[in-house]
């Protein structure tokens, strides 16, 4: 009796196939592709965020003509016109953020859980390439996809509002001439670049815990902060330690999108923007150093990791 193995291996030599040609490989690029194969959330999370925001916008379409009339009458109400477009960006941001957290904490744990690490390690891809590609997903690939999705979502929103305005008997130019997309799109690109850098240590930390923990990496990621926080609270009655993650998680938005890092003074135009202030912020650079350390530890940990 024959089984598929019998035939499987014969044909190439029999048919005289060409000898294998050795092509230049691109391990980093293919490691990224591999991640996107596995985690479709990289593009589905931003899409879902945009879809949610657009759906909300759709069911509140009746407000659009009123907003346009208000803005035409009173330039102070101009900002209201931008709300739907900010919402698209927010929707994409929130879901992508959630994806990035869950992705990072599972990235080096999942491959051990399903034993596939033995397959990955049987190929000529270094631990550094693997870990760096996993860090690049939330820090580079995801932001790029987010920018594209936000842009596309806003174009859809604009097309829809134009239609609504037209059917309400208004001139679409009243809408178009009052929208400030230049500043918004600049802020989206700048904001995402800044936030990716700002959150790099968070991603690095989660990757490191993901490579280290035997089970429940998310719990292990949170536990030290809670434990040290409680001890500090009991010993000194202060909460300084807990302010570290709090600042890292929330501080990036304040730094990127306000005049002085406080939550009140939001940036309204290019005049308010001071890139040298945001990018020269020492906390940003301290965070990047921490990120490099975390990623380095994650690479070393992965080398000695075997299936769970």
């Amino acid at each position, binding site marked *: 009796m024959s089984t598929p193995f019998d035939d499987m291996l014969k044909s190439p030599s029999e048919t005289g196939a060409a000898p*294998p040609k*050795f092509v*230049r*490989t691109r391990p980093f690029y*293919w490691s990224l592709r591999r991640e996107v194969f*596995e985690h479709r959330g990289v593009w589905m999370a931003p899409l879902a965020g945009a879809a949610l925001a657009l759906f909300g916008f759709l069911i509140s379409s009746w407000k659009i003509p009123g907003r346009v009339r208000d803005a035409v009458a009173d330039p102070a109400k101009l900002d209201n016109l931008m709300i739907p477009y900010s919402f698209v960006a927010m929707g994409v941001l929130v879901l992508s953020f959630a994806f990035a957290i869950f992705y990072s904490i599972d990235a080096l744990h999942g491959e051990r859980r399903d034993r596939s690490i*033995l397959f990955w*390690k049987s*190929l*000529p891809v270094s631990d550094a390439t693997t870990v760096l590609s996993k860090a690049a997903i939330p820090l580079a690939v995801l932001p790029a996809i987010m920018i594209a999705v936000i842009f596309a979502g806003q174009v859809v929103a604009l097309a829809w509002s134009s239609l609504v305005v037209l059917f309400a008997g208004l001139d679409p130019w009243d809408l178009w001439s009052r929208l400030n997309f230049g500043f918004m799109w600049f802020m989206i690109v700048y904001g995402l670049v800044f936030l990716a850098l700002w959150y790099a240590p968070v991603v690095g930390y989660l990757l490191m815990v993901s490579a280290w923990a035997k089970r429940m990496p998310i719990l292990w990621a949170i536990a030290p902060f809670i434990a040290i926080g409680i001890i500090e609270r009991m010993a000194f009655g202060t909460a300084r330690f807990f302010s570290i993650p709090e600042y890292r998680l929330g501080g990036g938005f304040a730094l990127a999108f306000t005049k002085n890092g406080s939550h009140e003074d939001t940036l309204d135009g290019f005049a308010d923007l001071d890139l040298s202030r945001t990018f020269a912020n020492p906390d940003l650079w301290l965070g990047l150093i921490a990120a490099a350390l975390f990623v380095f530890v994650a690479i070393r940990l992965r080398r000695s990791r075997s299936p769970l």
Partner: protein
Amino acid sequence: MAVIEARGLRKAFKNTVAVDGVDLKVEEGRILGLIGPNGAGKSTALSAILGLTSYEGQLRVLGCDPWTQRDQLMREVSFIADVAVLPRWMKVWQALDYVEGVHPRFDRAKAEGFLAKTNIKRTSKVRELSKGMVTQLHLALVMAIDARLLVLDEPTLGLDILYRKSFYDSLLNDYFDHSRTIVVTTHQVEEVQHILTDLMFIDHGKIVLDLTMEAFEARFAELMVSGERVAAARALGPIYERQFFGRTILLYDGAEEAKLAQLGEVRPASISDVFVAVITARHAAQPRGAAA
């Protein structure tokens, strides 16, 4: 240059010494069977060879230190650790694309040729394939890699006997040539006996037998005797004895075949019988645990 060369290879875990000072040399073109009871240290030794675990002592595989140069080493080494390591979410075409993208010695046409002979669809996910098909896929990927060393750790675990047999047949007939080297561990010793060129028994982290198959066949023989001849046969110093349908089968290490032939039917010894004899004798002389 030896493909694998180890001197004083040692790996200790918290409570046990898995590999305890192993000296090993595997030359190009050999097919080595690494045989040992569970927990003997086979897989740990292979892990060290493949750069999956750190170790003490000296180890060179194709001139590389596997622990620090795993990615370079994997250009010339393939391994199937066990059948269940292909990622279950992956689609067949994704696996082909990925391996082609990262492996300079992967011949995609060859892999596609293998797959064309199976029922595996390009769009199937690994999780949708049967166990046999997953092995076929893994094999198609590995066999299309022009590797100098192939390491197989229990490659046929959980596969039925038809697959197991054809697996080893195709390995020997279609993959192996004398510029390649294969190291295989398995519990199904009988199935690999005819393909091996070299044999190594490992027990409690130590190599207890290391010889070529020619030497094995010259050294070990099995004698089947009945009735009154048993006593005479025992006098020749068998290393192991068992009963088989009222007859006695005795296993000899280095006995003269002519003398044995006068007493009964002489047959080549099987690896599994010699394995049982050697390991039982060791465990009797040195109770389990004392070795560590």
